């Protein structure tokens, strides 16, 4: 694992905590916004130097994924019964339920995909957990946009099949 991973991980968590304390009323906070904010803070205030911006996003999206998943896990551990009820009542259960359930399901499906196709799994991490476009993700992964596009089509199908 990259030595800077824990640094980025810590910064993302710190920022998320800060936003929570500020009791955000709007819904502007997103993983993408957090990752960008972390980048600016680390470069400007902490003087962390990166090999490249891609280097940062590669680490930050991984960290974001871990944070989202850990948080979702913590949350669902306490709310299992309620979630079950929602699933019974609703025709499209996961989409309308707590985002935590979907996050956990995506993470699980990705873990399996990574066993077969690590590049495609990585692409999902960059896109779904980090909000990068296909072109941005291709740059981070140092592949052509066309390749990234093909990976994306497969990964998307994989997730859809897994999550139903």
């Amino acid at each position, binding site marked *: 694992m990259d030595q800077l991973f824990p640094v980025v991980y810590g910064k993302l968590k710190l920022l998320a905590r800060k936003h929570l304390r500020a009791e955000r009323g709007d819904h502007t906070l997103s993983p993408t916004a957090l990752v960008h904010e972390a980048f600016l803070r680390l470069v400007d205030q902490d003087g962390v130097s990166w090999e490249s911006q891609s280097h940062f996003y590669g680490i930050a999206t991984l960290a974001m994924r871990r944070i989202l998943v850990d948080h979702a896990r913590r949350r669902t551990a306490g709310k299992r019964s309620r979630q079950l009820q929602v699933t019974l009542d609703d025709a499209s259960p996961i989409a309308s339920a707590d985002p935590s359930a979907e996050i956990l399901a995506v993470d699980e499906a990705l873990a399996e995909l990574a066993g077969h196709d690590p590049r495609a799994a990585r692409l999902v991490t960059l896109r779904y957990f980090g909000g990068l476009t296909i072109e941005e993700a291709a740059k981070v992964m140092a592949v052509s946009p066309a390749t990234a596009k093909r990976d994306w089509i*497969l990964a998307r199908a994989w997730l859809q099949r897994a999550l139903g």
Partner: protein
Amino acid sequence: MISNTDWPRLRELFDQLVDLPRAEQAPRLEQLSAGDAWLREEVGSLLAASRTAGDRFDRVPDLPDDFGDFGPDDPSVGTRIGPYRIAREIGRGGMGAVFEAFRDDDAYTKRVAIKMVPADRVTPLVLKRFHHERQILARLEHKNIAALLDGGVTGDGRPWFAMECVEGERIDHYCDRQRLGVRDRLQLVRQVCAAVHYAHQNLVVHRDLKPSNVLVGPNGTVKLLDFGIAKLVDPGEPEPDLTETGTLPMTTSYASPEQLRGEPVSTTSDLYSLGVLLYELLAGRPPYLFGNLPILEIRQRMLEETPLAPSLVAEPNTAPVSELTRTRAGELDHIVLMALRKEPARRYASAEQLADDLLRFTAGQPVRAQPDSFGYRATKFAARNRAAVAAVAVIFVTLVGGLAVTLGQMRAGERERARTDVVNRFLQEVMLANAMDGGAGGGQRTISDALDAASVRLVSEELAGFPEVRATLQQIIGTSYLSIGRYQQGETHLQAALATQLPLLGEDHLETIKTGRSLAKVALVRADYAAAEAFFVRHLDRLRREERAGRLPTSSLVESLNDYALGRRAVGDAEAAEALLREALALQPRVPAVAQGAIKVIETLLILVQLDQGKLDAAEADARRLVERLRAGPYTASNEMAAGLTILGSILMEQGRLDESRARLREAEALYRRIFDPDYLPTHDNLRLQAQVAYLDGRTADGVALIDQVLANYRKFSKPQYISFATALTVQGQLLYAQGRLPEAERVMGEALALRRENLPAGHFMAALTEGALGELLVAAGRYAEAESLLVASKAALRQSQATANPRTRLAEARLAALYRAWGKPAP
């Protein structure tokens, strides 16, 4: 399950089919999967999912409302880290949090300490250091170093490692709680040395040695911890840049001067920190005490000041080192101070050598450490005062080199003015000012060396044609010698100056009188009170007039009044002494700020006058106030401070507060030794008082060693008439008496009493004190009648001369009462 060998086929098929129109996909799949039902099923379901997925995963998930509420970052009780289960947090610092943890998946339960970077301290630098520590620990395997056992990375990417969990207590706390003596403390420090030496052999410098990083286990085994900022000195292995701003997070009190300066650190830097640790364990306090001083000042002092010897600052009776005799403590002082030297190259070369010297000390063998010489300390002083030194050097060149030529071209009147100008500048601004503070010399030379060099040039032919100039210079140089305690050289120069001045200028020329003034000082040191008296009787009024006319600095007159007062006191004329001192004190407003030290000395002597009258409480109050004022001002490390502390120590001794007395006297001694030549008379007056404290305290061996040294010094410079000589003999007699050597004790005290009677007026309290001491001895010898006459006279004289209710008179009364009890005779 899809095996990885199947995946490339699956992926290839999917990629081929996904772009086809939906109607064509099924037939193509059927065809291409070639009867592989499993493959057809997998690809088919993925193609179907691909059609329904849409942009569902194109956007990031919404964040739950409570995103940001993550719970604690650092492992709480019960959390697993690697194979370990966290039991509790042991400690936390900037560099790492340490947890106690157990490995319980084995057949047995193993206890470890897990260290990891605290979540709120995760920065690239901290992580780098952490990895670095782990690498360093991995190469160290020693019974006195906590061993590395395991390591890994947590879920959030933070590295951790497990170490042997040391059951133990900080070395300083352990020593104090167990009330360990010096021997046991040294044994522990030798273990620390062993660990440090081993690390050094493995090219690791610890860089953060301090008590909290040295634990002692219940079986007395030392474990060295925390290599968090350790450094590899292996030239083949580049050190990662662990410093951001050039400073490391080491603890200032234990940092070596080179660390404080941000200079390269070597194994000898650890030796310095070991020295600080050793110092604390022996003296019960750190080498430097700074209170609330600003940090820059603290740093400056740590870089410049030599710490006082541990035995000199240790609290008597409570500090471990106080259990040793003075001689033994002195050897240990040398060891500690050698480790604490400012220059890495002058410390012990290795921790092993330090351990070896400690072992030698314990075994009673001579230690290798040697004290810094006086000359060396003076050199350091000169190096610290470059500006002053440069000024001295310039004036020396002007005076001794070019002046002769210049003077030769001048007319008589001009020549006189030039001489006065240059000489006065030299005398007042540079030479004396620096000499009083401890000396300064040209370049790397000491004041002593500078004076010696100047002496040589004085007799060269350069000044042959100008004897009166040479005489003035000799007078200045001679006076400077006196001011650092080199009496012999001082007297030689002053006599030579006088020999020139008397025929050339006459007895009443101011230059001649100035030389006489300094010679009177020599006479006082030599206890030639009559000679000093003769000078002052004849010339004091002249000095007063010259001062008023502005031709003599006020501080010079103050010094002369001071000297004359001491002379009068020495022959028992307390009244005249006090009058002279009061006259000097009244001159204070005219004394410039830089020379106010002379006034402080007058204040000290006025306290002495009170003490002579037996007014101990008043004297104590004044002495304490004086010392407090000196501590606040620019005199913290001065001759004046030493004098003030010495008189306070002397008062406390007579009041029976021996511990405090010894502490003050030793503080003063340390200052004297730092500033003056070892032969300086006041240093030995101080030691005499310490011998007296040792006698009163029952530390007879210490007392004897001290008093022998003092008497040897007194005999070297002074006639037996020196007022303190008889006092020293009395103390020696008392110490001999304490050793049971009655005949020798009686002989020595008899000699003291004879000197008193010869040199002091009848009924003088000092004679009475000696009579009392001798009387007590005679009581012990059973010679009651002789004792009675002495003790009765002593009591009467003290009642007459001393204030009411003072310890001296009370002692005399108690001695007399004891006599009659022993004699079996009712008191008259």
